[in-house]
């Protein structure tokens, strides 16, 4: 008699593709939901302003600056590190950009200089954290003060105005579209998000960033060069900060010794509001872009809803706390 063996069901577990997609991107979706709720509330408060495309356009002018900061910040927080020196890096590289343009350099070349400087500052910060084995939280606070201090000493409180930038070809490429519905810098920012998305989700580098942030010991045991990944993260933040600095000068035609300072908390808030948790190993890049949009809308929204600027911080706080509570219930924590 043959022994009857019951074959195991060879069928794959059936997953509803839409459900799977939503499930895989639940953090980004809940960030999107928060944005929609927020916009709906603003629209209820002041329908005429929030149905006017110009309101959105004014947000799109400055949103790109936040996006250039937030995309690499999502990477570094996923990687289990933090960089609080990005405001000073932003100020420092855009300083170089402003000086170069003022002194008659080609703005494209000036931008390249700024990006290289951001990369160098990022690698300097990264090597300090990684090789001296310092806490990135504390070391980068120190670096932020240190670099800003150098700016203050060097600039002696003077800003650099470069109104002629508006007439350059470089300006029309990166920051043109004054009469278009969407200013051109927004397309560059979206391109940066797209690039970031592929790097984060489809590239070896993104995969290793997730692994290192999840468990650096396991990563090292499996042959991932943890130090190199960490330094690369700081370099990426440096490049993002430099781009943010250049775009901020392109928008304002002025470099201030304080350029970048105001972004410290809003940019970090955007990462967390977007659904990336603080503990490392997981995150969402699209969520980070959505988070930037939420944070950028708060200021416009509060004013447009008829409140004075005194309410801005109150609403920042309210929206950040509410969205963190929302994410807490949405995303399960495996750790």
């Amino acid at each position: 008699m043959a022994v009857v063996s019951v074959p195991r069901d060879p069928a794959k577990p059936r997953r509803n593709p839409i459900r799977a997609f939503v499930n895989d991107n639940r953090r980004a979706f809940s960030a999107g939901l928060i944005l929609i709720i927020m916009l709906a509330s603003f629209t209820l408060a002041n329908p005429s302003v929030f149905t006017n495309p110009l309101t959105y356009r004014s947000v799109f002018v400055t949103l790109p600056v936040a996006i250039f900061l937030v995309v690499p910040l999502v990477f570094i927080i996923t990687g289990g590190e933090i960089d609080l020196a990005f405001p000073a890096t932003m100020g420092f590289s855009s300083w170089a950009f402003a000086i170069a343009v003022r002194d008659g350099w080609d703005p494209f070349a000036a931008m390249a200089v700024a990006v290289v400087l951001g990369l160098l500052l990022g690698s300097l910060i990264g090597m300090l954290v990684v090789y001296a084995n310092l806490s990135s939280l504390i070391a980068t606070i120190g670096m932020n003060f240190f670099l800003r201090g150098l700016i203050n000493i060097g600039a002696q409180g003077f800003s650099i105005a470069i109104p002629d930038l508006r007439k350059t070809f470089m300006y029309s490429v990166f920051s043109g579209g004054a009469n278009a519905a969407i200013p051109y810098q927004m397309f560059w920012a979206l391109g940066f998000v797209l690039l970031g998305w592929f790097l984060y989700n489809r590239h070896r580098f993104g995969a290793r960033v997730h692994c290192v942030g999840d468990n650096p010991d396991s990563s090292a045991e499996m042959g991932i060069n943890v130090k190199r990944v960490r330094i690369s993260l700081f370099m990426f933040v440096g490049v993002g900060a430099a781009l943010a600095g250049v775009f901020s000068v392109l928008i304002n035609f002025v470099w201030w010794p304080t350029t970048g300072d105001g972004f410290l908390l809003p940019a970090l808030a955007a990462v967390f509001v977007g659904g990336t948790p603080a503990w490392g190993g997981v995150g969402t890049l699209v969520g980070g872009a959505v988070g930037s949009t939420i944070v950028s809308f708060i200021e416009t929204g509060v004013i447009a809803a008829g409140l004075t600027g005194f309410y801005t911080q109150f609403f920042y706080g309210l929206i950040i706390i509410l969205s963190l509570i929302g994410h807490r219930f949405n995303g399960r924590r495996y750790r």
Partner: protein
Amino acid sequence: MSKRLVELKSVTKSYGNVNAVENVSLYVDEGEVLGLIGDNGAGKSTLIKILSGVHAPDSGEIYVKGQKVSRWNAAKSREAGIETVYQDRALVAQQTIVRNIFMGREITNFLGFMDMKKQHSEAERLMREIGFTSKVFNPSSLVATLSGGERQGVAIARALYYDADLIILDEPTTALSLTETQKVFSFIQAVKDKGRSVIFIGHNIYHVYDIADRFAVLDRGKVVLEALKSEVPSAEILIQNMHSIARTGHIGAEPVELRGGIRLGDN
């Protein structure tokens, strides 16, 4: 005579003032299963981590396929064909099974971009062939959602995926049922049949006795006994020797019948 695959020569490693491994020389031949045994804290894991490149030794030399290696690290050891199942499993719990299997060795298309489809299908196949579970695996599951034995299955499957020349298993069966333990032994046998080598660390001497061709006993960082299976008549004899080593620090305090030549540690 079989060929040396890897060899450690006079390797020493200390953590602060703890001498975890002291002047150890050890080799593994091609097609051989080496059983590495010893009490808790004897230095077994430290020793294999030196071989796999996770820890740099304080002194001593490492030879792989006859070549002395320099600036040895975990990435290089994997490239050289050494795969390891670490005692801590070396998994990243918040990531998918796919990411865990390919971490540090992603399948890429161009410019470092990953072949997601291939990674997924390979992981699915691997988990079907090796994974320790009765349920059908979805390679997109997070490792954090798996049971302890299932996680161990992921770590073992990962080591078996690459047709490695040497597979190091550091207590691979601790969380496993009898069935799964048998499965691990049949995998080891299959690896050996292909002419590959294995280092097996375990606390169950009967298991180690069954699976290994040769034994090395580590005690307080030193190799105190090395013997071929043909020299040790039974697992009981091996256990008796280990007892007497633990009591006296060396063999021979009590009459223990070992056939043939036993080599004491060099010091």
